[in-house]
């Protein structure tokens, strides 16, 4: 079975993010690039499946990103993935979800897959829209927000996380899946993985190899960023005085209750 994990390379999640007012795009220079944290869970889910299924199950990392991200992709290989493919092309600049998904779908068709696992959300773009668009272009079902996955005889049985609990959903391969953080804490890369990563291949694909029929990049984007505004400043905090500990606890309790957090 061939599992492909889509991994987005995002600016270090702890770094302060800046939007260039001229291009209205996130400034990615001068900030360290890391694997989108949600995608580490997708990698973990794939590696756990590989361990469970054994045999000829392989895990391929796929990312649409500048070639300079190769070193970051290597971390995914060090975690235990078998190989990686990067779709890197200046012509992709300005792609929105629609155009990104189209380009990625063509690349994924070329790579081949039985199962695609995506993270639920990218820390920077934050739309959560890409996986569904991808499944549309690929013509495969999307099983979203999986928290537990079982596969046998090309049949998938998964627990799909909902606000109140989970649903049990079944389906057949090939399919695309997104996972939540409940699939399991991402493993650390191991020293052996790090030392072995240099022997694994990271292929770089260009748009010219894909025979695209639609425009990608700015030309293919259906959305346009019209304006960008900073988040409104936070209002002054509410200060409450309590007579004693229990009274203070009561105030906090009521506050949380009022907001339906308890």
């Amino acid at each position: 079975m061939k599992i492909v994990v889509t991994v987005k390379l995002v600016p270090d999640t702890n770094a302060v993010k800046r939007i260039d007012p001229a291009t209205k795009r996130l400034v990615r220079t001068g900030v360290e690039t890391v694997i989108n944290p949600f995608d580490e869970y997708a990698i973990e889910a794939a590696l756990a499946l590989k361990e469970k299924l054994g045999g000829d199950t392989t895990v391929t990392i796929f990312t649409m990103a500048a070639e300079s991200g190769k070193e970051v992709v290597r971390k995914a290989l060090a975690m235990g993935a078998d190989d990686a493919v990067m779709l890197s092309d200046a012509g992709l600049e300005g792609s929105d979800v629609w155009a990104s998904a189209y380009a990625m779908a063509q690349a994924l068709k070329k790579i081949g897959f039985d199962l695609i696992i995506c993270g639920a959300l990218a820390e920077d773009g934050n739309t959560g829209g890409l996986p569904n668009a991808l499944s549309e272009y690929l013509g495969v079902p999307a099983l979203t927000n999986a928290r537990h996955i079982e596969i046998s005889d090309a049949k998938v049985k998964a627990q799909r996380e909902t606000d109140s609990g989970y649903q049990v959903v079944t389906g057949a391969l090939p399919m695309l899946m997104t996972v939540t953080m409940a699939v399991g804490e991402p493993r650390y890369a191991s020293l052996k993985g790090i030392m072995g990563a240099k022997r694994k291949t990271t292929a770089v694909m260009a748009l010219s190899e894909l025979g695209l029929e639609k425009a990608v990049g700015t030309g293919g984007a259906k959305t346009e960023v019209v304006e960008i505004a900073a988040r409104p400043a936070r209002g002054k905090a509410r200060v409450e005085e309590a007579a004693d500990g229990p009274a203070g606890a009561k105030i906090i309790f009521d506050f949380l209750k009022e907001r339906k957090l308890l």
Partner: protein
Amino acid sequence: MNFDLSDEQKAIQSLVREFAQAEVVPRAEEMDRQEAFPYDLVKQMAELGLMGLPFPEEYGGAGADTVSYALAVMELGRADASTGITMAAHVSLGATPFYLYGTKAQKEKYLIPLAQGSMLWGFGLTEPGAGSDAANVQTKAQLREGKWIINGTKAFITNSGTDISGGSTITAVTGARPEGKPEITNLIVPQDTHGFSRSRKYKKMGWRASDTRELSFVDAEVPEENVLGARGKGLQNFLTVLDGGRISVAALSVGLSMGAYDESLKYAKERQAFGKSISKFQAIQFKLVDMLSEIEHAKNMVLKAAWEKDQGRDFAMTASFAKLYSAEVSRRVVNEAVQIHGGYGFMDEYPVSRMYRDQKINEIGEGTNEVQRMIIAKMLGL
């Protein structure tokens, strides 16, 4: 000249940093207080491949270089000195003698489980009456009917008595040389050897979560084949092992200093006095600058020694410089770290108080500051 780390070195550094900050830092205070050896962390480190980091893959190691090893020890030491020394002593002192001097059979029997981290091993050089004067070995071993009969005591042996310690390799006098000097040989003594016992853990000022014990041998018997390396080369071989070990204890000193600096920088920004953050006072700024600049010097020297070793060059003098300098830097750094914390730095719940206690051994273990100076002076032909 190139100061860049390779992709692997960077990846190993960031892996160990991530692991140490996430798994070790939150535990350090409690481990220190309870003197609790962290079996679960050792298991995790073994899974990551840290316990056999520099050994070849065929012997269960990860096949990384000495620079990577030094970076890994720095990151562990930055989080917790006890965890750092447990790993560093395991690799540099426990496993390395087998790697350097073991026969193929000994490597398979001992080095593989050690590199995989399923077993720990002690390095028994020091005795109650033989520390700096390591040649003054009193432990004796006599060959009788194909067996070595060992009698004597070893002091302060790291990793020698944990639940997963497999044994210790020791120096023992096995006879006399023609010129009358004692013949010193390394013997492999498995934990279950009859007549070999370990004391309770010493109560220590620092490195409290590491395992340090006295070893005692009363007619302890091991098979004749348990000689490691050539007979009569025991002291020389152990001193060579210590040359490499110096790089790792130097890295540990740098790591401890980095940890103390991290805490001080954070605290200086948070703490307010006279209506502003104390980091705005030049007196505090200068302390932080001096700390960091000394750490940077020490770190460069450690990495240079590691690099020389990787290049197959003679690294002994640089390693001694690095060990001596890093140890003394760590003393100045933890001292200023506590000073920056004021009274809170004297309190148990602030990590710098633990670091202050953990520091002192850096100037004593694996050759005191004085001994480092003696070694360097000798190399200078003095």
